């Protein structure tokens, strides 16, 4: 019993479960990973990962302007990501190629703006905290007041993906088949873009704007290698995302005690690395089923 306790202590540093900032990080981080994983399965099926990336980059501009005016970055992330989703829907809906171009233009503009805002922020502040928080996230520094809005937004995004599940899947697989069944393909696509913007904004809060698509795409891409069924892919992606986030939190917390610096490594690094490891393991490890 005593030995078990010692082993456990070696893995989980004292205070991990009782620390309120860790608790908040675990709740928000888990929720966000669940939303991003579920939404991300459709991002991959629809081939819109580039759009997700653009939403994250635009979100960076929103988050940094929110920081500049003293509002929680979440509101900046969400406002700009949803607005960007609307613009992408309006200007690039006709052709797949047109969508790529539109996304590229939005992406460049977003990052340029973020660069300016972050520069202004750091100049006024004389710290680089804003840059790190916006771009790479700082999940242990979340305010408790973030919990309710994050929960509400997460529920909205999840509801879109779960309630629209079947028509969204058919419209993602083949817009023609969906249209022939009377499914409003464009409306569904627009609603899905909103869900994606919300998922990206939430991910930006936990692991940063630049890395936000890692939580969107990574667990989903891992799930696609592990299962042939769309329903199971959604469940698997959520589990991979939540697992990577929670394990990342644990490792980051432990890393405060790691030599030589005893400084603590960023959570985002661990989460993204764990997602990559899961992805690689899924592709190399168990032979994927190819029934032919």
């Amino acid at each position, binding site marked *: 019993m005593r030995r078990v306790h010692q082993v456990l202590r070696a893995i989980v540093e004292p205070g991990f479960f009782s620390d309120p900032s860790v608790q908040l990080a675990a709740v928000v981080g888990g929720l966000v990973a669940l939303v991003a994983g579920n939404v991300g399965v459709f991002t991959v099926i629809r081939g819109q990962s580039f759009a997700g990336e653009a939403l994250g980059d635009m979100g960076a501009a929103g988050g940094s302007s929110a920081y500049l005016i003293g509002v929680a970055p979440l509101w900046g992330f969400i406002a700009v990501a949803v607005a960007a989703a609307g613009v992408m829907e309006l200007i690039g809906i006709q052709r797949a190629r047109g969508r790529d171009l539109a996304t590229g233009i939005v992406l460049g503009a977003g990052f340029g703006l973020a660069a300016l805002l972050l520069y202004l922020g750091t100049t006024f502040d004389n710290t680089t905290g804003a840059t790190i928080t916006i771009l790479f996230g700082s999940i242990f520094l979340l305010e408790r007041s973030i919990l309710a809005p994050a929960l509400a937004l997460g529920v909205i995004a999840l509801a879109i993906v779960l*309630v629209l599940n*079947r028509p969204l899947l058919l419209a993602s697989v083949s817009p023609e088949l969906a249209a022939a069944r009377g499914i409003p393909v464009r409306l569904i696509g627009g609603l899905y873009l909103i869900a994606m913007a919300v998922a990206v904004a939430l991910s930006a809060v936990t692991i940063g704007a630049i890395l936000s698509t890692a939580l969107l795409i990574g667990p989903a891409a891992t799930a696609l290698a592990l299962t042939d069924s769309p329903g199971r892919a959604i469940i698997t992606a959520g589990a991979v995302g939540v697992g990577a986030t929670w394990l990342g939190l644990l490792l980051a917390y432990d890393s405060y005690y790691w030599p030589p610096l005893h400084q603590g490594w960023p959570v985002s690094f661990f989460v993204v690395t764990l997602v990559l490891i899961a992805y690689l393991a899924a592709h190399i490890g168990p032979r994927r089923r190819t029934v032919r």
Partner: protein
Amino acid sequence: MSHEPLTVPEVRETTLAVEGVTVGLSGRTILDDVSFTIGRGEFTGLIGANGAGKTTLFRVILGLLAPASGRVRVGGGERSRRDMGYVPQKFLLDPDMPLRGRDLVGLGLDGHRLGFALPSRARRRRIDAMLDAVDARGFGDARVGQLSGGEQQRILIAHALISEPTLLLLDEPLANLDLRSAQEVVRLLAGIAREQQIAVLISAHEMNPLLPVMDRIVYMAAGRAASGTTAEVVRSDVLSGLYGHHVDVLRVHGRVIVVAGTGQDEHTAIDASGHGPGTVEIV
């Protein structure tokens, strides 16, 4: 006492009626007063070169495109999408996508409904029966993107049929299939039309694979259509009228070849993929 020869009036229950449909897109006439009917359980080929207006006609029948004039009736009454099963021309799915054949067939059953499909034995049995009906049970659990063209067509046909339509529309299902797969798909569709009394409208730029099973033909050229039995339609005078210039219809070893002749040039037979003034496909 003389009798009129006894003729049994043809009882033909109309499943699809296309009445004077005209469609213009950006000043160009795509469909020009197209009219035809398809009876219950009839296997009908919609034949024409690329650009003849076949896909546009399907979009009008499905209600995805409103015609400038004319109308479409399905089952003699109001059109309902439940009455129609559709297999689109282009279906490309990445082999990595997590979608099995049975998932796609299930989406044909209830893909328009909200929420998840709850697993139930009845639903599973119905999907299995549908997969059996198109000889797709063996690969129903494989990812759709990893199937061959012919296998994908079977899955798509099952997707279209599982909602029990009275009319099955297929846009160029034989394109990109090798000869054997094409013959198998045609045989499958002909059986469905005959046994389940489902009207089948299948578009193709090549009529020969369909000749043995076609009950009726709708021949399209330059947005106009002629319809009837193959004997009535595939004739030099009818097709010449449709094309607006002289064409010859040759029958060689049970195959039909349509040849354009201008009278001055040599007779030119141009491949189905070619289009332009005065070009006619070999079919």
